[in-house]
């Protein structure tokens, strides 16, 4: 036996891993369930439930199916500016009105929506050192349907210490907004008694609605991923992704206020966004195992041709305790620049731009999340967890000079939310 020192041992250990690797026996079903409450102060409340079933079959084949149900109630900002006087808006259907009080962010509270999503995923090894995964996803809500397919091919290198993957996803969404799709930047018709009869109001309202054109969108996503084991305690991942979206990308329920020199809103125009968007993202994640804790830190950089870029830093630090429980503080910091066509309001007298939106979500934002999770693994292999998080989002001034009375009003309101989640694995 010329092989000396640890060469022989290494070869032997590697061979013994191969010997036992084939013993991945078919497992029972694993179930993963969670229920989450999301609540904003005085605004949107959401309840979301997830039920996932996974089965590992012989030879590392894996099937999983997931059901997600969420329901949303409450009001969300419609994009209009605050005013020193009460404002009246027409509901998206055109059948009613809602109001915003003095110095109050105009909220549209006419929505109550339930979404159901079903997805299935299959993955299996493909030849030596390859793994393939394919899946489909269907989602349905009152005014929105989506169907998506994905495929991911992974290739292992270097003793499975390096994994390169290429993923493709295609999603086809269709939008059927309540009251139809508004004509971009047309003026919201508000019935203040100026119409001779109901029919006159209807025809004015209908003139703000599109008759043809795109009523859906399709999304192509490409992800290139690289996972690298650094050492026994350290693993990293890098993703580069591209996303091309085409179709109707406007939020049919959002408006932009047009204000005069005194800062008074003279009309509300339905927002209008470009019909395509190209996005790029870079994502890096690192996980490090300490003696009795695990640190998971990630960074994401995104950029798109709407001019929105964002930075996200997220950290989860899991303290592992002897009794199989853990405590995991979570911090997330998010910063986003505004879209080129974002504006908190339009100025009367200026030419109406081709695209404009006052949706705070594509404005300039800073957000942070603080949270903590407690989890416990039971002897039977079951596991439960409780998570509480606080989310704060602050819209930032984009440097548009506020005329007259707008000066004293909050053009960039902030939002607070609480997230509470229970999960159980069995």
């Amino acid at each position, binding site marked *: 036996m010329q092989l000396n020192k640890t060469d022989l041992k290494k070869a032997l250990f590697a061979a013994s891993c191969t010997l036992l690797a084939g013993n991945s026996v078919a497992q029972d079903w694993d179930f993963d369930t969670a229920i989450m409450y999301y609540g904003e102060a005085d605004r949107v409340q959401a309840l979301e439930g997830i039920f996932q079933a996974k089965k590992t079959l012989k030879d590392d084949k894996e099937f999983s199916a997931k059901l997600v149900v969420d329901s949303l109630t409450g009001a969300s900002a419609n994009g209009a500016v605050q005013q020193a006087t009460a404002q009246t808006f027409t509901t998206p259907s055109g059948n009613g009105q809602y109001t915003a009080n003095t110095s109050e962010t105009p909220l549209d509270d006419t929505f109550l929506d339930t979404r159901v999503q079903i997805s299935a995923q299959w993955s299996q090894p493909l030849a030596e050192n390859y793994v393939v995964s394919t899946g489909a996803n269907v989602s349905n809500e009152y005014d929105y349907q989506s169907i998506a397919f994905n495929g991911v091919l992974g290739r292992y290198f270097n003793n499975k210490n390096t994994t390169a993957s290429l993923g493709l996803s295609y999603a086809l969404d269709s939008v059927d907004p309540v009251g139809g799709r508004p004509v971009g930047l047309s003026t919201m018709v508000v019935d203040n008694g100026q119409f001779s009869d109901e029919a006159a109001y209807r025809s004015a309202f209908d003139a703000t609605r599109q008759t043809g054109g795109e009523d859906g969108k399709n999304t192509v996503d490409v992800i290139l991923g690289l996972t*690298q084991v650094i050492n026994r305690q350290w693993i990293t991942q890098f993703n580069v992704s591209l996303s091309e979206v085409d179709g109707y990308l406007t939020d049919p329920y959002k408006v932009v206020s047009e204000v005069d020199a005194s800062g008074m809103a003279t009309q509300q125009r339905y927002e209008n966004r470009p019909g395509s968007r190209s996005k790029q993202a870079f994502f890096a994640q690192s996980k490090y195992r300490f003696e009795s804790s695990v640190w998971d830190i990630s960074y994401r950089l995104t950029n798109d041709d709407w001019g929105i870029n964002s930075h996200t830093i997220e950290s989860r630090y899991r303290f592992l305790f002897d009794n199989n429980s853990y405590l995991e503080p979570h911090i997330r910091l998010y910063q986003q620049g505004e879209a080129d066509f974002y504006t908190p309001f339009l100025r009367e007298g200026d030419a109406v731009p081709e695209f404009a939106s006052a949706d705070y979500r594509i404005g300039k934002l800073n957000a942070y999340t603080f949270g903590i999770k407690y989890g416990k693994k039971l002897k039977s292999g079951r596991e439960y967890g409780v998570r509480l998080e606080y989310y704060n989002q602050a819209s930032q001034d984009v440097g548009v000079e506020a005329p007259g009375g707008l000066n004293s009003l909050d053009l960039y309101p902030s939002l607070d939310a609480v*997230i509470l989640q229970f999960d159980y694995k069995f």
Partner: protein
Amino acid sequence: MKKIIMLFAAVAILGVTGCSSLGVQPWERDLLATDEMSLSAGATDLALDDHIYFSKEGTSGGRGFAGGGCGCN
């Protein structure tokens, strides 16, 4: 298209320089094989978070597919 080529090149470079001397032997995977070291650990939490941030912020994806599937944005 140029962007795509650049991104592919970036990943290729990371891949080539990144892995030659890194990694562990199969029998040293004891820690990496634990649930908490899995990159998909807490996948349910991440899915729920993604949905929230997707509906409240202007950008999405990165970790996985940015996807559509929801009219909330």
